[in-house]
Each structure stands twice: as structure tokens, then as C-alpha cells.
């Protein structure tokens, strides 16, 4: 009622002014955040001579855009292998993570185990032990297992950070499933395992999917393990292969480098974007729900 009475023009003008102010204030942040990605993208599609002419306006094409940089990537480097490695590594890591973290998260959240809360916290805290402290001893373990110089080394090592994080995440998920549902399932004749598999797991599917996404995106954030454990050119995952194999001495193929970075980095960034709030909730213990 009051809204209808108020003179619409001043209201609207006020709102527009407010919006303009906010946009003006937030634009620098957006530019700072996005520019390196824009720069990556435009470099990837530029012809080589276009990259090295300082007298031209660099933010747009001065010569026709080209796909040559991407052709080089796929025909003259191991880029295709790296993408394949990245996906197989992630799939294995996700599988190992789920097989351990789903039951563990459920058990810690639901069964009245002595010290469950503390065990959960202890598992999560191992997520905070940085790779830089673990990579030297792990390099010995990887060597003992005979996995050095193969991407299987990373399949073994990445769960050291995905399991702690996903167990913690799933604990939170399982706690939100109402107990009554589980009890109803039991009344209907399911055992504990049956209730879990037929009722709890399907309800918690979003949580399980979130864990898979994190197993993937957290693996993509690694650089150190890949750098330290996998040296053959065709065995690396993308985030390690691109910076270590495409840079040869002092010669930089910037177009291909940026293309390689963009093609994998952007989809990962977008995917992660959708799950960022979950990540924040996970590490802050769900305080900011």
C-alpha cells in the first residue's frame, strides 16, 4: 500500500543511484579478479606476431584470431595425455574417497560411537597438515610402492587431503538427515546397513556428489605432489604438465601456454564456483549456514 502511494520516480531514481554507486565501487574488484583470465583467453587466440608488438593496443586482436595455439597443444605436446591423466586420476581419487569417506562420515555422524566427534575433528585436522611437510616422506613411500614416475603415485597421495575434507563434509550432511526417516526404514524391516543403503544414501546424494566434485577440484589445486613424484612427460596431470613441460628453458610459447591453462582451468573454476559455499561451510565448520 505504502509503496503504491510513494512517488515512483524518486524511489526509482534513488535505487538507480544506489546501484550505480555499488557498481562503481565493485568494478575495480571485478577487473582485478577477471583480468588475468581475460588476458589468458585473448593470448590463447592471438597469432604470435600479435603478442609481441608493444605499439599496438594489446587488449584486442590486431591480427585475425587463430586456433593455431590449440593445434600445437594437441598435436605437438602431451596435452591430450595430461587431460586424460587428470580425469583418470580424479576418478580414482573420487572412488577411493567415497569408499572411505561415505561410511566413515555416516558412522561418525550417526552411530553413537565413543569419541566420534573428536575422531571426526582429528580426521579433518589432517587436512591442515600441508603437503610441503609430507612430500619428502611420501616420496619414499611412493618409491617403495614402485609408483614413482607414474600418475598412480598421485592416486595414492591425493586421498590424503580429499578423505579428511570429504569425511568432515559428509558428517555434516548425514547429521541433517532426520533420524525419524532412518527409524521408519528400520520399522519397515531394514537393518542398519539396509537403512543406510536404501534410505540415507539416496537422500544424501547431493552430499555424495559434492564430495566427488571436491575430490576433483582439490586434486586440481595440487602442484607440489605432481611436481615431486611424476617426471615423465606423458604421465603428468594438466596443472603440472602445462607449467613444467610447455616451458623449455627461456623459450615461452605464450599462446599455447595460455590456451592450455584456459581450456582446463576455466571449467574447473566454474565448477568449483558452484560449490564454493560448501567449501567455506566445510572449513568453517558450518558456522555460517
Amino acid at each position, binding site marked *: 500500500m505504502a509503496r503504491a502511494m510513494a512517488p515512483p520516480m524518486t524511489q526509482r531514481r534513488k535505487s538507480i543511484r*544506489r*546501484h550505480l554507486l*555499488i557498481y562503481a*565501487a*565493485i568494478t575495480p*574488484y*571485478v577487473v582485478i*579478479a577477471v583480468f*588475468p*583470465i581475460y*588476458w589468458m583467453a585473448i593470448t590463447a587466440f592471438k597469432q604470435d606476431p600479435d603478442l*609481441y608488438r*608493444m605499439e599496438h593496443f594489446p587488449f584486442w586482436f590486431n591480427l585475425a584470431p587463430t586456433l593455431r595455439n590449440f593445434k600445437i597443444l594437441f598435436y605437438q605436446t602431451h596435452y591430450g595425455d595430461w587431460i586424460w591423466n587428470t580425469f583418470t586420476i580424479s576418478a580414482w581419487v573420487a572412488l577411493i574417497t567415497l569408499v*572411505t569417506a561415505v*561410511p*566413515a562420515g555416516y*558412522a561418525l555422524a550417526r*552411530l*553413537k*560411537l565413543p569419541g566420534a566427534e573428536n575422531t571426526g*575433528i582429528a580426521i*579433518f*585436522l589432517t587436512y*591442515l*597438515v*600441508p603437503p*610441503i*611437510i609430507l*612430500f*619428502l*616422506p611420501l*616420496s619414499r*613411500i611412493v618409491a617403495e610402492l614402485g609408483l614413482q614416475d607414474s600418475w598412480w603415485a598421485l592416486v595414492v597421495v591425493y586421498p*590424503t587431503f580429499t578423505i579428511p575434507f570429504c569425511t568432515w563434509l559428509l558428517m555434516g550432511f548425514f*547429521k541433517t538427515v532426520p*533420524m525419524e526417516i532412518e527409524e521408519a526404514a528400520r520399522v519397515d524391516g531394514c537393518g*542398519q*546397513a539396509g537403512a543406510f543403503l536404501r534410505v540415507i544414501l539416496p537422500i544424501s546424494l547431493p552430499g555424495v556428489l559434492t564430495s566427488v566434485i571436491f575430490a576433483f577440484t582439490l586434486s586440481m*589445486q595440487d*602442484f*607440489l605432489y605432481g611436481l615431486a613424484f611424476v617426471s615423465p612427460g606423458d604421465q603428468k596431470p594438466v*596443472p603440472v604438465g*602445462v*607449467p613444467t613441460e610447455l616451458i623449455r628453458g627461456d623459450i615461452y610459447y605464450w599462446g599455447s*601456454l*595460455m590456451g592450455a*591453462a584456459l581450456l582446463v582451468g*576455466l571449467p*574447473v*573454476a*566454474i565448477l568449483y*564456483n558452484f560449490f*564454493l559455499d560448501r567449501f*567455506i*561451510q566445510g*572449513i568453517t*565448520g*558450518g*558456522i*555460517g549456514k
Partner: protein
Amino acid sequence: MTGSSLHGGPDPMARAAVVSVPARAALYVLLLVGAPFLFSLYLAVSDANVGEPIAHFVGLENFKAALEMDVFWISLRNSVVFLVVAAVLKSLLGTSLAFLLLQDFKGKKLIRGLVVIPFTLPIAISVLSWKWMYDSQFSVINWVLSRMGLIGQFGTEGWPIWLGDPKLALVACILVNVWRTFPFSAIVLLAGFTSVPVEVIDAAKVDGCSFFQRFRHVVVPMIFPILMIGFLFDTVFTLSDLSVVYLLTQGGPANATKILPVLAYQIGIQAGSLGRGAAIALFLVPLLIPALILVLRNLKRREY
């Protein structure tokens, strides 16, 4: 916690079967984090290196040797400078951004999505873009600065060579870290702000608190735990991250950007001196332990 009184636990057999389940995850984590951690302590007191598989106990020799290296002290100093300067800058940027994102405006979701891209992009990949932007000759940053008349022409004294000049290289590396993590600071803060119930703020308003009083005495204490956790996570990741410096400068020029993780990697893997490298990496522990303890204390307060 609803219905917990109803839940007495089913038959003891099934219970015993599932008790082993978290044990399995704990075991995996223990094997791959706990054991390596102990193993790293062992390495640090041995003369293990890549060439000779049999290591001897050398006591604190590796730690002593590290303390006697000039480059160790340079790295420690750089690590601390890196951490502190980056923390100040990202808090400033993060806080101001969080306040902006707290406002209601059209297209907020899109803008938020764009602003957090630096944090979600795999780090080794985004650093490459910066390496290109810091190029000694074709730096786009220099192009802009030079058109604005802030720096000289290429080839003159006034043309900054970001990664080649000892005075600028650390700044350049810090900027990349700040760029990557300021969205994280903002989002954590935002999560904190939105967790403060509006009623509490209103109550404080009714009681006659000014904006700053409300902020200082109501909002800050309420979001403190979440702030601490965000801060500590960032500390752990910033201190232990090697990819930014390794990919930009490898610690050069003349050790100007050498930080502890890079030193540990170079000595442990590249020079093959596992014991020495492990000892250097372990010097990060005293810096990290306070962070771990504080996170632990805050997590215990988790509500469901």
C-alpha cells in the same frame, strides 16, 4: 540431535560391524598423513639422501646445518614477510569487498561468481597468466603503466622487470598470492556477517548503539570464530604454498623470493638430500601449530 533419545542403537552385531568403518578411514588417513609425518621426523634426524638408501641417525645435525645456512635465514625472513604483507593486503581488499557484497543489488550472483574466480582457478594455472603479465619485455602491466606515464620506456631504467629485479620480485609474488586469496577472505567474512541474526543487530539498535558500537561489540565478537578459522586456513596455505614462487622465480633472483617451501623442495628433491629437506620443512611446524590449535578450538563449537 533430534530423536537421539529414541535411538538406542539396533542389534549389537550390526553396530560392531559398522564401528570398523570410521576406523578404516582413520587408518587410511593415519597411514598417509600420520605415518609420513613421523617418517619426516625420522628423515630430519637422519642423513638420508636419494643416492644411498641406508640412512644413519645424525641427531639434530640437519637442523643445525639449516640454521647455519644463510639461505635458510633469508627464506625464513621472506616467508614471514610474504605471510604478513599478503595478510594485510588481502584483509583490506577482502573486507571492503565483503561489505560491498553485503549490499543488495541486481546481478550480485554474477558479480560474486566473477570475483571468486581467482580462488577457484587451479593455482598452477593462474600463476602462468601472471608470469606472462610480468614478462620482462611484453608485460601488459608495464604497457598500461607506461601509457599512463608512470614508468619509463622499455630498455630504460624506468622499465620495471618484475621477476628479474630483486627489489620487485617478492612484491610480484606477494601480489599473486593476494590476488588469489582476497576473494577467499571476502567470502569467509561474508559467511560470518550473514550468520549474525538480524534480530541481534536490531536489538542493539533499539538499545541505542551506533553503527561502530554495533560493529565492535556485536558483530565482531559473533563472527570472531569464523574469522579466525578463515585467517588460519589462509596462514597454513600461504606459508606452505610453493607453486607461486616456484613457477614465477624459483626463488630467485639472488634468493630474493626464496621461501621455506621452495628451499625444502630444492634441497630435498632437486639436491636429493632428503634429511636436510625434511628438517627445513619441519621448521614450518612451529609456525603452523598455533594455527592448528586455534582451528581445533573453534571447530569444537560447531553447531548442527
